[in-house]
Protein backbone atom coordinates (compact mmCIF):
# COMPACT_ATOMS: atom_id res chain seq x y z
CA UNK A 1 0.00 0.00 0.00
CA UNK A 2 2.77 2.35 0.88
CA UNK A 3 4.64 1.20 -2.15
CA UNK A 4 1.76 2.15 -4.38
CA UNK A 5 1.41 5.55 -2.80
CA UNK A 6 5.08 6.20 -3.32
CA UNK A 7 4.68 5.30 -6.97
CA UNK A 8 1.94 7.87 -7.22
CA UNK A 9 4.11 10.37 -5.42
CA UNK A 10 6.64 10.03 -8.20
CA UNK A 11 3.95 10.75 -10.73
CA UNK A 12 2.92 13.80 -8.82
CA UNK A 13 6.45 15.10 -8.35
CA UNK A 14 7.30 14.50 -11.97
CA UNK A 15 4.23 16.23 -13.23
CA UNK A 16 4.58 19.19 -10.88
CA UNK A 17 8.16 19.57 -11.98
CA UNK A 18 7.23 19.60 -15.61
CA UNK A 19 4.56 22.22 -15.03
CA UNK A 20 6.92 24.40 -13.04
CA UNK A 21 9.66 23.97 -15.59
CA UNK A 22 7.29 24.99 -18.35
CA UNK A 23 6.41 28.12 -16.44
CA UNK A 24 10.03 29.03 -15.83
CA UNK A 25 10.78 28.75 -19.50
CA UNK A 26 12.60 26.13 -21.50
CA UNK A 27 14.60 28.02 -24.04
CA UNK A 28 16.13 31.39 -23.74
CA UNK A 29 18.00 33.70 -26.04
CA UNK A 30 21.16 31.75 -25.63
CA UNK A 31 20.10 28.16 -25.61
CA UNK A 32 18.59 26.12 -22.80
CA UNK A 33 17.10 28.29 -20.09
CA UNK A 34 16.34 27.61 -16.45
CA UNK A 35 13.50 25.25 -17.14
CA UNK A 36 15.24 23.00 -19.62
CA UNK A 37 16.86 20.48 -17.34
CA UNK A 38 14.03 20.44 -14.82
CA UNK A 39 11.70 19.57 -17.67
CA UNK A 40 13.84 16.62 -18.65
CA UNK A 41 14.05 15.46 -15.05
CA UNK A 42 10.33 15.86 -14.61
CA UNK A 43 9.64 13.90 -17.75
CA UNK A 44 11.88 11.04 -16.68
CA UNK A 45 10.39 10.96 -13.22
CA UNK A 46 6.87 10.96 -14.58
CA UNK A 47 7.72 8.21 -17.01
CA UNK A 48 9.35 6.04 -14.37
CA UNK A 49 6.47 6.67 -12.01
CA UNK A 50 4.09 5.62 -14.75
CA UNK A 51 5.99 2.39 -15.35
CA UNK A 52 5.99 1.63 -11.66
CA UNK A 53 2.27 2.22 -11.40
CA UNK A 54 1.33 0.28 -14.51
CA UNK A 55 3.62 -2.69 -14.10
CA UNK A 56 3.61 -3.25 -10.38
CA UNK A 57 4.52 -6.91 -10.52
CA UNK A 58 7.93 -6.42 -12.04
CA UNK A 59 9.16 -3.87 -9.56
CA UNK A 60 7.20 -4.95 -6.59
CA UNK A 61 9.08 -5.59 -3.43
CA UNK A 62 8.06 -8.84 -1.82
CA UNK A 63 7.07 -8.26 1.78
CA UNK A 64 8.88 -5.07 2.56
CA UNK A 65 10.00 -5.21 6.09
CA UNK A 66 7.63 -2.66 7.59
CA UNK A 67 8.05 -2.17 11.31
CA UNK A 68 5.59 -3.49 13.86
CA UNK A 69 3.83 -1.43 16.51
CA UNK A 70 6.62 -1.34 19.07
CA UNK A 71 9.15 -0.58 16.42
CA UNK A 72 7.04 2.26 15.07
CA UNK A 73 6.93 3.74 18.52
CA UNK A 74 10.70 3.65 18.75
CA UNK A 75 11.16 5.16 15.34
CA UNK A 76 8.77 7.96 16.13
CA UNK A 77 10.74 8.49 19.29
CA UNK A 78 13.95 9.02 17.37
CA UNK A 79 12.24 11.29 14.90
CA UNK A 80 10.60 13.21 17.70
CA UNK A 81 13.96 13.68 19.30
CA UNK A 82 15.45 15.04 16.12
CA UNK A 83 12.53 17.37 15.55
CA UNK A 84 12.80 18.61 19.12
CA UNK A 85 16.46 19.27 18.58
CA UNK A 86 15.87 21.24 15.41
CA UNK A 87 13.19 23.36 17.05
CA UNK A 88 14.90 24.07 20.34
CA UNK A 89 18.43 24.57 19.07
CA UNK A 90 18.05 28.25 18.16
CA UNK A 91 16.03 28.94 21.28
CA UNK A 92 17.79 27.12 24.04
CA UNK A 93 21.27 26.73 22.75
CA UNK A 94 23.13 23.57 22.05
CA UNK A 95 23.85 22.33 25.53
CA UNK A 96 20.27 22.22 26.77
CA UNK A 97 18.77 21.20 23.47
CA UNK A 98 21.12 18.30 23.00
CA UNK A 99 20.76 17.17 26.57
CA UNK A 100 16.98 17.04 26.40
CA UNK A 101 16.97 15.31 23.05
CA UNK A 102 19.53 12.73 24.00
CA UNK A 103 17.79 11.93 27.24
CA UNK A 104 14.39 11.60 25.60
CA UNK A 105 15.85 9.38 22.91
CA UNK A 106 17.53 7.09 25.35
CA UNK A 107 14.37 6.74 27.37
CA UNK A 108 12.09 6.22 24.41
CA UNK A 109 14.15 3.91 22.34
CA UNK A 110 15.93 1.92 24.89
CA UNK A 111 14.05 2.28 28.11
CA UNK A 112 17.28 2.01 29.99
CA UNK A 113 17.40 2.91 33.58
CA UNK A 114 17.12 6.59 34.29
CA UNK A 115 20.49 6.83 35.95
CA UNK A 116 22.19 5.28 32.98
CA UNK A 117 20.43 7.63 30.60
CA UNK A 118 21.43 10.66 32.60
CA UNK A 119 25.04 9.61 32.69
CA UNK A 120 25.22 8.81 29.01
CA UNK A 121 23.45 12.06 28.16
CA UNK A 122 25.75 14.18 30.23
CA UNK A 123 28.81 12.39 28.98
CA UNK A 124 27.86 12.67 25.32
CA UNK A 125 26.84 16.31 25.47
CA UNK A 126 29.88 17.35 27.41
CA UNK A 127 32.13 15.38 25.12
CA UNK A 128 30.70 16.91 21.97
CA UNK A 129 30.66 20.41 23.39
CA UNK A 130 34.22 20.13 24.57
CA UNK A 131 35.54 19.06 21.21
CA UNK A 132 33.64 21.56 19.14
CA UNK A 133 33.10 24.55 21.29
CA UNK A 134 36.28 24.69 23.27
CA UNK A 135 38.92 22.85 21.37
CA UNK A 136 37.92 23.72 17.86
CA UNK A 137 36.22 26.99 18.63
CA UNK A 138 33.26 26.24 16.46
CA UNK A 139 30.72 28.29 18.41
CA UNK A 140 27.69 26.11 18.82
CA UNK A 141 24.50 28.03 19.43
CA UNK A 142 24.38 29.50 22.89
CA UNK A 143 21.68 29.20 25.47
CA UNK A 144 19.76 32.30 26.53
CA UNK A 145 22.17 32.59 29.42
CA UNK A 146 25.20 32.86 27.26
CA UNK A 147 26.86 29.47 27.54
Amino acid at each position, binding site marked *: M*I*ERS*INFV*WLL*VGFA*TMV*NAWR*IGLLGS*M*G*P*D*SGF*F*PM*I*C*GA*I*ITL*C*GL*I*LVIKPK*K*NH*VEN*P*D*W*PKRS*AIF*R*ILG*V*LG*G*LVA*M*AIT*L*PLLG*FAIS*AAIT*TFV*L*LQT*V*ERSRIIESVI*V*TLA*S*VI*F*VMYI*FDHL*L*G*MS*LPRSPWGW
Partner: protein
Amino acid sequence: MGFSVLFTAENLYFCFLGSVVGTLVGVLPGIGPLAALALLLPVTFQLAPVAGLGMLAAIFYGAMYGGSTTSILVNIPGEAASVVTAIDGHQMARQGRAGSALGIAAIGSFVAGTLALVALTFFSPLLSSVAIRFGPPENFGLMVLGLVTTLYMIGGSKVKGVLMIAMGFLIAIIGMDIVNGRDRFTLGNINLSGGIEILSVVIGLYGVSEILLNCETILKNQVLTEKIKGLWPTFSDWKASWKPMMRGSFLGFFLGLVPGGGPVTASFVSYALERRIAKNPERFGKGAIEGIAGPEAANNAAVSGSMIPLITLGIPGNAVTALLLGALVIQGIQPGPTFITQRPDLFWGFIASMYVGNVFLLLLNLPLVGIWVQCLRIPYRILFPLILLLSIVGTYSANKNVFDLWIMLGFGVAGYILRKLQYEFAPFLIAFVLAPMLEQSLRQSMVMSPDGLLIFMTRPVAAVIIFLSVVLAILVFRQRKLIQPRGDL
Protein backbone atom coordinates in the same frame (compact mmCIF):
# COMPACT_ATOMS: atom_id res chain seq x y z
CA MET B 1 65.32 19.20 -1.63
CA GLY B 2 61.80 19.18 -0.43
CA PHE B 3 62.58 16.69 2.23
CA SER B 4 65.29 18.86 3.69
CA VAL B 5 62.81 21.71 3.95
CA LEU B 6 60.29 19.45 5.51
CA PHE B 7 62.34 17.92 8.21
CA THR B 8 62.10 20.56 10.85
CA ALA B 9 60.39 19.73 14.09
CA GLU B 10 57.63 22.24 13.50
CA ASN B 11 56.75 21.09 10.02
CA LEU B 12 56.69 17.45 10.95
CA TYR B 13 54.69 18.06 14.06
CA PHE B 14 51.94 19.91 12.25
CA CYS B 15 51.89 17.39 9.45
CA PHE B 16 51.34 14.71 12.05
CA LEU B 17 48.76 16.79 13.84
CA GLY B 18 46.91 17.26 10.60
CA SER B 19 46.94 13.54 9.95
CA VAL B 20 45.46 12.85 13.34
CA VAL B 21 42.81 15.50 13.04
CA GLY B 22 42.03 14.33 9.54
CA THR B 23 41.52 10.76 10.62
CA LEU B 24 39.36 11.87 13.50
CA VAL B 25 37.33 14.12 11.31
CA GLY B 26 36.89 11.38 8.76
CA VAL B 27 35.69 8.99 11.38
CA LEU B 28 33.15 11.36 12.85
CA PRO B 29 29.99 11.20 10.84
CA GLY B 30 28.88 14.53 9.53
CA ILE B 31 32.07 16.43 10.05
CA GLY B 32 34.04 16.35 6.88
CA PRO B 33 37.42 17.72 6.00
CA LEU B 34 35.89 21.02 4.90
CA ALA B 35 34.56 21.81 8.34
CA ALA B 36 37.81 20.90 10.02
CA LEU B 37 39.82 22.96 7.57
CA ALA B 38 37.57 25.95 8.09
CA LEU B 39 37.99 25.67 11.83
CA LEU B 40 41.73 25.31 11.76
CA LEU B 41 42.38 27.89 9.06
CA PRO B 42 43.06 30.67 11.56
CA VAL B 43 45.66 28.53 13.27
CA THR B 44 47.68 28.46 10.10
CA PHE B 45 47.99 32.22 10.09
CA GLN B 46 50.49 31.97 12.89
CA LEU B 47 52.42 29.14 11.36
CA ALA B 48 55.12 28.96 8.75
CA PRO B 49 53.74 28.11 5.31
CA VAL B 50 54.93 24.53 5.00
CA ALA B 51 53.74 23.68 8.48
CA GLY B 52 50.33 25.28 8.06
CA LEU B 53 49.74 24.02 4.57
CA GLY B 54 51.06 20.59 5.39
CA MET B 55 48.66 20.37 8.27
CA LEU B 56 45.65 21.40 6.21
CA ALA B 57 46.50 19.02 3.40
CA ALA B 58 47.03 16.23 5.90
CA ILE B 59 43.54 16.83 7.24
CA PHE B 60 42.16 16.55 3.72
CA TYR B 61 43.67 13.23 2.81
CA GLY B 62 43.59 12.00 6.41
CA ALA B 63 39.84 12.27 6.26
CA MET B 64 39.88 9.90 3.30
CA TYR B 65 41.60 7.34 5.48
CA GLY B 66 39.30 7.77 8.45
CA GLY B 67 36.06 8.10 6.54
CA SER B 68 35.94 4.44 5.75
CA THR B 69 35.94 3.48 9.40
CA THR B 70 32.37 4.31 10.33
CA SER B 71 31.23 3.27 6.88
CA ILE B 72 32.52 -0.19 7.48
CA LEU B 73 31.66 -0.52 11.12
CA VAL B 74 28.21 0.99 11.40
CA ASN B 75 27.14 1.62 7.84
CA ILE B 76 27.21 5.36 8.36
CA PRO B 77 29.62 7.18 6.10
CA GLY B 78 32.17 9.40 7.79
CA GLU B 79 31.85 11.76 4.91
CA ALA B 80 30.60 11.85 1.37
CA ALA B 81 33.64 10.25 -0.24
CA SER B 82 33.22 7.17 1.95
CA VAL B 83 29.62 6.47 1.12
CA VAL B 84 30.52 3.80 -1.38
CA THR B 85 32.81 2.01 1.03
CA ALA B 86 29.83 1.37 3.26
CA ILE B 87 28.08 -0.73 0.64
CA ASP B 88 30.43 -3.66 0.72
CA GLY B 89 32.48 -2.67 3.73
CA HIS B 90 29.68 -3.00 6.21
CA GLN B 91 28.65 -6.33 4.82
CA MET B 92 32.18 -7.51 5.35
CA ALA B 93 32.04 -6.27 8.92
CA ARG B 94 28.88 -8.26 9.52
CA GLN B 95 30.62 -11.33 8.23
CA GLY B 96 33.36 -10.82 10.75
CA ARG B 97 35.81 -9.51 8.21
CA ALA B 98 35.91 -5.95 9.53
CA GLY B 99 39.62 -6.15 10.12
CA SER B 100 40.25 -7.15 6.59
CA ALA B 101 38.01 -4.40 5.27
CA LEU B 102 39.63 -1.73 7.39
CA GLY B 103 43.07 -2.96 6.54
CA ILE B 104 42.51 -2.98 2.83
CA ALA B 105 40.94 0.46 3.05
CA ALA B 106 43.97 1.85 4.86
CA ILE B 107 46.51 0.19 2.63
CA GLY B 108 44.63 1.04 -0.52
CA SER B 109 44.52 4.63 0.61
CA PHE B 110 48.23 4.64 1.24
CA VAL B 111 49.18 3.04 -2.05
CA ALA B 112 46.94 5.34 -4.01
CA GLY B 113 48.01 8.43 -2.12
CA THR B 114 51.66 7.73 -2.69
CA LEU B 115 51.30 6.77 -6.33
CA ALA B 116 49.24 9.84 -7.02
CA LEU B 117 51.88 11.99 -5.35
CA VAL B 118 54.52 10.49 -7.59
CA ALA B 119 52.41 11.40 -10.57
CA LEU B 120 51.97 14.87 -9.14
CA THR B 121 55.69 15.26 -8.67
CA PHE B 122 56.55 14.39 -12.21
CA PHE B 123 53.59 15.37 -14.27
CA SER B 124 52.18 18.55 -12.78
CA PRO B 125 53.32 20.99 -15.41
CA LEU B 126 52.20 18.75 -18.23
CA LEU B 127 48.85 18.04 -16.66
CA SER B 128 48.14 21.63 -15.82
CA SER B 129 48.65 22.70 -19.40
CA VAL B 130 46.14 20.04 -20.40
CA ALA B 131 43.73 21.09 -17.66
CA ILE B 132 43.71 24.63 -18.92
CA ARG B 133 42.41 23.52 -22.26
CA PHE B 134 39.36 21.97 -20.67
CA GLY B 135 36.66 24.43 -21.38
CA PRO B 136 32.91 24.10 -20.93
CA PRO B 137 32.37 21.63 -23.80
CA GLU B 138 35.00 19.27 -22.47
CA ASN B 139 33.68 19.56 -18.95
CA PHE B 140 30.24 18.72 -20.22
CA GLY B 141 31.61 15.62 -21.86
CA LEU B 142 33.24 14.52 -18.64
CA MET B 143 30.10 15.05 -16.64
CA VAL B 144 28.09 13.03 -19.13
CA LEU B 145 30.67 10.28 -18.89
CA GLY B 146 30.39 10.33 -15.14
CA LEU B 147 26.63 10.16 -15.33
CA VAL B 148 26.75 7.20 -17.69
CA THR B 149 28.91 5.31 -15.24
CA THR B 150 26.17 5.65 -12.68
CA LEU B 151 24.03 3.46 -14.87
CA TYR B 152 26.47 0.73 -14.05
CA MET B 153 25.87 1.20 -10.40
CA ILE B 154 22.25 0.24 -10.55
CA GLY B 155 22.04 -3.24 -9.16
CA GLY B 156 18.35 -3.84 -8.89
CA SER B 157 15.38 -2.37 -10.61
CA LYS B 158 16.50 -0.21 -13.47
CA VAL B 159 13.41 1.90 -13.43
CA LYS B 160 13.97 2.78 -9.81
CA GLY B 161 17.61 3.45 -10.53
CA VAL B 162 16.89 5.86 -13.34
CA LEU B 163 14.25 7.49 -11.20
CA MET B 164 16.82 8.05 -8.51
CA ILE B 165 19.21 9.59 -10.99
CA ALA B 166 16.56 12.00 -12.20
CA MET B 167 15.62 12.87 -8.62
CA GLY B 168 19.25 13.48 -7.79
CA PHE B 169 19.42 15.89 -10.67
CA LEU B 170 16.24 17.62 -9.64
CA ILE B 171 17.22 18.09 -6.01
CA ALA B 172 20.57 19.45 -7.12
CA ILE B 173 18.81 22.00 -9.30
CA ILE B 174 16.93 23.50 -6.38
CA GLY B 175 18.45 26.87 -5.72
CA MET B 176 19.73 29.78 -7.67
CA ASP B 177 20.30 29.29 -11.34
CA ILE B 178 23.92 30.24 -11.78
CA VAL B 179 23.52 31.26 -15.36
CA ASN B 180 20.88 33.91 -14.82
CA GLY B 181 20.66 34.36 -11.09
CA ARG B 182 17.02 33.35 -10.73
CA ASP B 183 15.77 31.04 -8.04
CA ARG B 184 14.39 27.71 -9.11
CA PHE B 185 12.12 25.40 -7.16
CA THR B 186 12.89 27.14 -3.92
CA LEU B 187 9.27 27.67 -2.95
CA GLY B 188 10.19 31.12 -1.77
CA ASN B 189 12.42 29.85 1.01
CA ILE B 190 15.73 31.68 1.08
CA ASN B 191 17.40 28.81 2.82
CA LEU B 192 16.91 26.82 -0.33
CA SER B 193 18.27 29.61 -2.45
CA GLY B 194 21.79 28.31 -2.11
CA GLY B 195 20.82 24.80 -2.93
CA ILE B 196 20.55 21.85 -0.63
CA GLU B 197 23.66 21.08 1.35
CA ILE B 198 25.18 17.78 0.31
CA LEU B 199 26.18 16.96 3.84
CA SER B 200 22.58 17.12 5.01
CA VAL B 201 21.60 14.79 2.22
CA VAL B 202 24.33 12.26 2.90
CA ILE B 203 23.87 12.21 6.65
CA GLY B 204 20.12 12.10 6.37
CA LEU B 205 19.88 9.53 3.62
CA TYR B 206 22.51 7.22 5.00
CA GLY B 207 23.05 8.11 8.62
CA VAL B 208 19.63 8.91 9.98
CA SER B 209 17.92 6.20 7.98
CA GLU B 210 20.46 3.71 9.27
CA ILE B 211 19.77 4.69 12.84
CA LEU B 212 16.03 4.47 12.26
CA LEU B 213 16.46 1.01 10.79
CA ASN B 214 18.50 -0.11 13.73
CA CYS B 215 16.02 1.23 16.20
CA GLU B 216 13.28 -1.03 14.99
CA THR B 217 14.36 -3.92 17.05
CA ILE B 218 15.44 -3.78 20.60
CA LEU B 219 18.87 -2.42 20.07
CA LYS B 220 21.14 -5.32 19.58
CA ASN B 221 23.95 -5.28 21.98
CA GLN B 222 26.53 -5.08 19.37
CA VAL B 223 26.68 -4.63 15.68
CA LEU B 224 28.77 -7.65 15.14
CA THR B 225 26.89 -10.86 14.88
CA GLU B 226 29.57 -13.24 13.81
CA LYS B 227 32.90 -14.01 15.27
CA ILE B 228 35.70 -11.73 14.22
CA LYS B 229 37.79 -13.59 11.70
CA GLY B 230 41.22 -12.17 12.29
CA LEU B 231 42.43 -8.63 11.93
CA TRP B 232 44.46 -8.74 8.80
CA PRO B 233 43.51 -9.15 5.18
CA THR B 234 44.06 -12.67 3.97
CA PHE B 235 46.10 -13.63 0.98
CA SER B 236 43.05 -14.04 -1.18
CA ASP B 237 41.95 -10.56 -0.11
CA TRP B 238 45.23 -9.19 -1.33
CA LYS B 239 45.03 -11.01 -4.59
CA ALA B 240 41.57 -9.62 -5.22
CA SER B 241 42.46 -6.12 -4.14
CA TRP B 242 45.64 -5.11 -5.78
CA LYS B 243 44.29 -4.55 -9.26
CA PRO B 244 41.30 -2.51 -8.08
CA MET B 245 43.72 -0.46 -6.05
CA MET B 246 45.77 0.29 -9.12
CA ARG B 247 42.75 1.11 -11.19
CA GLY B 248 41.31 3.21 -8.40
CA SER B 249 44.52 5.19 -8.07
CA PHE B 250 44.67 5.90 -11.75
CA LEU B 251 41.01 6.81 -12.02
CA GLY B 252 40.94 8.84 -8.85
CA PHE B 253 43.96 10.86 -9.84
CA PHE B 254 42.39 11.99 -13.08
CA LEU B 255 38.99 12.58 -11.58
CA GLY B 256 40.56 14.76 -8.94
CA LEU B 257 42.20 16.77 -11.65
CA VAL B 258 38.95 17.60 -13.35
CA PRO B 259 36.93 20.61 -12.14
CA GLY B 260 33.87 19.63 -10.17
CA GLY B 261 35.32 16.21 -9.64
CA GLY B 262 37.15 15.22 -6.56
CA PRO B 263 37.13 12.38 -4.08
CA VAL B 264 33.37 11.89 -4.00
CA THR B 265 33.00 11.44 -7.74
CA ALA B 266 36.15 9.33 -7.86
CA SER B 267 34.89 6.86 -5.28
CA PHE B 268 31.59 6.37 -7.06
CA VAL B 269 33.06 5.95 -10.49
CA SER B 270 35.62 3.50 -9.18
CA TYR B 271 32.88 1.40 -7.64
CA ALA B 272 30.95 1.41 -10.89
CA LEU B 273 34.05 0.42 -12.79
CA GLU B 274 34.95 -2.44 -10.51
CA ARG B 275 31.44 -3.76 -10.67
CA ARG B 276 31.37 -3.53 -14.45
CA ILE B 277 34.54 -5.46 -15.02
CA ALA B 278 34.27 -7.97 -12.21
CA LYS B 279 33.82 -11.60 -13.13
CA ASN B 280 31.01 -12.11 -10.66
CA PRO B 281 29.28 -8.78 -10.22
CA GLU B 282 26.59 -10.33 -8.01
CA ARG B 283 29.13 -10.34 -5.20
CA PHE B 284 28.97 -6.59 -5.04
CA GLY B 285 26.74 -5.39 -2.27
CA LYS B 286 27.38 -8.52 -0.28
CA GLY B 287 30.94 -7.97 0.81
CA ALA B 288 33.13 -7.84 -2.25
CA ILE B 289 36.49 -6.53 -1.27
CA GLU B 290 37.00 -4.91 -4.65
CA GLY B 291 34.18 -2.61 -3.65
CA ILE B 292 36.43 -1.19 -0.96
CA ALA B 293 39.86 -1.41 -2.51
CA GLY B 294 38.94 0.53 -5.63
CA PRO B 295 36.96 3.41 -4.13
CA GLU B 296 39.23 3.93 -1.16
CA ALA B 297 42.21 4.14 -3.47
CA ALA B 298 40.31 6.43 -5.77
CA ASN B 299 39.32 8.97 -3.17
CA ASN B 300 42.86 9.28 -1.88
CA ALA B 301 44.33 9.60 -5.34
CA ALA B 302 41.76 12.25 -6.12
CA VAL B 303 43.11 14.39 -3.29
CA SER B 304 46.49 14.58 -4.98
CA GLY B 305 44.85 15.04 -8.33
CA SER B 306 42.91 18.02 -7.09
CA MET B 307 46.12 19.57 -5.81
CA ILE B 308 47.48 19.91 -9.29
CA PRO B 309 45.17 22.63 -10.59
CA LEU B 310 45.48 24.30 -7.21
CA ILE B 311 49.23 24.48 -7.10
CA THR B 312 50.07 24.96 -10.74
CA LEU B 313 47.22 27.22 -11.75
CA GLY B 314 45.75 28.52 -8.56
CA ILE B 315 42.39 27.04 -9.51
CA PRO B 316 40.47 25.25 -6.83
CA GLY B 317 38.39 22.35 -8.13
CA ASN B 318 36.19 22.01 -5.07
CA ALA B 319 35.40 23.66 -1.76
CA VAL B 320 38.29 22.07 0.10
CA THR B 321 40.93 23.17 -2.36
CA ALA B 322 39.33 26.59 -2.40
CA LEU B 323 40.04 26.77 1.27
CA LEU B 324 43.61 25.63 0.79
CA LEU B 325 43.96 28.37 -1.76
CA GLY B 326 42.80 30.86 0.82
CA ALA B 327 45.32 29.56 3.30
CA LEU B 328 48.08 30.00 0.75
CA VAL B 329 46.99 33.46 -0.24
CA ILE B 330 46.92 34.71 3.26
CA GLN B 331 50.47 33.55 3.69
CA GLY B 332 51.30 35.79 0.79
CA ILE B 333 51.77 32.93 -1.61
CA GLN B 334 50.08 33.05 -4.96
CA PRO B 335 49.86 29.55 -6.34
CA GLY B 336 49.98 29.61 -10.05
CA PRO B 337 52.33 29.21 -12.95
CA THR B 338 55.09 30.99 -11.08
CA PHE B 339 54.75 29.11 -7.85
CA ILE B 340 57.22 26.38 -8.63
CA THR B 341 59.82 28.73 -9.95
CA GLN B 342 59.43 31.47 -7.38
CA ARG B 343 59.15 29.36 -4.26
CA PRO B 344 60.63 25.96 -5.00
CA ASP B 345 61.32 25.48 -1.32
CA LEU B 346 57.67 25.81 -0.47
CA PHE B 347 56.45 23.75 -3.37
CA TRP B 348 58.71 20.82 -2.72
CA GLY B 349 58.39 21.12 1.02
CA PHE B 350 54.65 20.88 0.64
CA ILE B 351 54.87 17.82 -1.60
CA ALA B 352 57.33 16.19 0.75
CA SER B 353 54.92 16.79 3.62
CA MET B 354 52.22 14.94 1.71
CA TYR B 355 54.43 11.90 1.19
CA VAL B 356 55.30 11.83 4.84
CA GLY B 357 51.71 12.47 5.83
CA ASN B 358 50.57 9.40 3.98
CA VAL B 359 53.13 7.35 5.84
CA PHE B 360 51.96 8.79 9.15
CA LEU B 361 48.43 7.90 8.27
CA LEU B 362 49.25 4.36 7.38
CA LEU B 363 51.14 3.91 10.63
CA LEU B 364 48.29 5.54 12.48
CA ASN B 365 45.43 3.67 10.90
CA LEU B 366 46.72 0.12 10.78
CA PRO B 367 47.14 -0.35 14.49
CA LEU B 368 43.85 1.42 14.99
CA VAL B 369 42.10 -1.32 13.05
CA GLY B 370 42.31 -3.53 16.10
CA ILE B 371 40.84 -0.84 18.29
CA TRP B 372 38.02 -0.03 15.91
CA VAL B 373 37.04 -3.63 15.66
CA GLN B 374 36.79 -3.79 19.42
CA CYS B 375 34.54 -0.75 19.27
CA LEU B 376 32.03 -2.93 17.53
CA ARG B 377 31.48 -4.50 20.88
CA ILE B 378 30.21 -1.32 22.50
CA PRO B 379 26.52 -1.65 23.12
CA TYR B 380 24.71 0.11 20.36
CA ARG B 381 22.43 1.87 22.77
CA ILE B 382 25.35 3.89 24.09
CA LEU B 383 26.87 4.39 20.70
CA PHE B 384 23.85 5.62 18.88
CA PRO B 385 23.10 8.84 20.79
CA LEU B 386 26.69 9.87 20.35
CA ILE B 387 26.56 9.11 16.66
CA LEU B 388 23.32 11.02 16.36
CA LEU B 389 24.65 14.01 18.23
CA LEU B 390 27.77 14.11 16.14
CA SER B 391 25.73 13.83 12.98
CA ILE B 392 23.63 16.78 14.06
CA VAL B 393 26.59 18.92 14.92
CA GLY B 394 28.36 17.93 11.78
CA THR B 395 25.43 18.82 9.59
CA TYR B 396 24.90 22.09 11.41
CA SER B 397 28.54 23.03 11.03
CA ALA B 398 28.31 23.26 7.27
CA ASN B 399 26.31 26.48 7.11
CA LYS B 400 25.44 27.17 10.74
CA ASN B 401 21.86 27.00 9.66
CA VAL B 402 19.22 25.02 11.52
CA PHE B 403 17.41 24.57 8.24
CA ASP B 404 20.00 22.02 7.25
CA LEU B 405 18.90 19.90 10.18
CA TRP B 406 15.38 19.83 8.82
CA ILE B 407 16.73 18.76 5.46
CA MET B 408 18.69 16.03 7.18
CA LEU B 409 15.55 14.88 8.93
CA GLY B 410 13.51 14.92 5.76
CA PHE B 411 16.04 12.89 3.88
CA GLY B 412 16.33 10.57 6.83
CA VAL B 413 12.65 9.73 6.71
CA ALA B 414 12.66 9.49 2.94
CA GLY B 415 15.76 7.33 3.09
CA TYR B 416 14.14 5.00 5.56
CA ILE B 417 11.05 4.50 3.45
CA LEU B 418 12.97 4.16 0.21
CA ARG B 419 15.34 1.63 1.68
CA LYS B 420 12.41 -0.53 2.63
CA LEU B 421 11.22 -0.31 -0.93
CA GLN B 422 14.64 -1.19 -2.26
CA TYR B 423 15.60 2.03 -3.93
CA GLU B 424 19.29 2.65 -4.32
CA PHE B 425 20.89 5.88 -3.24
CA ALA B 426 24.23 5.72 -4.98
CA PRO B 427 22.85 6.79 -8.36
CA PHE B 428 20.95 9.57 -6.63
CA LEU B 429 24.02 10.87 -4.90
CA ILE B 430 26.29 10.93 -7.86
CA ALA B 431 23.65 12.60 -10.01
CA PHE B 432 23.33 15.15 -7.23
CA VAL B 433 27.06 15.80 -7.31
CA LEU B 434 27.45 15.95 -11.07
CA ALA B 435 24.27 17.79 -12.03
CA PRO B 436 25.29 21.40 -11.34
CA MET B 437 28.48 21.18 -13.34
CA LEU B 438 26.81 19.28 -16.12
CA GLU B 439 24.09 21.84 -16.56
CA GLN B 440 26.44 24.76 -16.22
CA SER B 441 28.87 23.38 -18.79
CA LEU B 442 26.13 22.69 -21.29
CA ARG B 443 24.66 26.13 -21.01
CA GLN B 444 28.03 27.82 -21.09
CA SER B 445 28.90 25.83 -24.19
CA MET B 446 25.67 26.82 -25.86
CA VAL B 447 26.34 30.48 -25.14
CA MET B 448 29.87 30.28 -26.42
CA SER B 449 29.01 28.40 -29.52
CA PRO B 450 28.10 30.23 -32.68
CA ASP B 451 26.61 27.06 -34.14
CA GLY B 452 24.67 25.60 -31.26
CA LEU B 453 25.17 21.96 -30.49
CA LEU B 454 27.81 21.57 -33.17
CA ILE B 455 30.38 22.90 -30.77
CA PHE B 456 30.58 19.43 -29.33
CA MET B 457 31.64 18.06 -32.67
CA THR B 458 34.11 20.77 -33.57
CA ARG B 459 36.08 20.40 -30.39
CA PRO B 460 37.92 17.09 -30.65
CA VAL B 461 38.38 16.29 -27.00
CA ALA B 462 34.75 16.94 -26.18
CA ALA B 463 33.63 14.92 -29.15
CA VAL B 464 35.71 11.92 -28.12
CA ILE B 465 34.47 11.97 -24.57
CA ILE B 466 30.85 12.22 -25.58
CA PHE B 467 31.22 9.44 -28.12
CA LEU B 468 32.72 7.26 -25.41
CA SER B 469 29.80 8.03 -23.12
CA VAL B 470 27.29 7.08 -25.76
CA VAL B 471 29.10 3.80 -26.38
CA LEU B 472 29.18 3.00 -22.68
CA ALA B 473 25.53 3.87 -22.32
CA ILE B 474 24.58 1.44 -25.04
CA LEU B 475 26.74 -1.24 -23.51
CA VAL B 476 24.91 -0.91 -20.23
CA PHE B 477 21.72 -2.11 -21.75
CA ARG B 478 23.40 -4.99 -23.46
CA GLN B 479 25.06 -6.09 -20.28
CA ARG B 480 21.80 -6.01 -18.40
CA LYS B 481 20.22 -8.39 -20.81
CA LEU B 482 23.05 -10.86 -20.44
CA ILE B 483 23.23 -10.88 -16.73
CA GLN B 484 19.60 -10.72 -15.78
CA PRO B 485 17.72 -12.94 -18.17
CA ARG B 486 14.66 -12.70 -15.99
CA GLY B 487 13.97 -9.44 -17.75
CA ASP B 488 14.29 -7.39 -14.65
CA LEU B 489 13.50 -4.00 -16.08
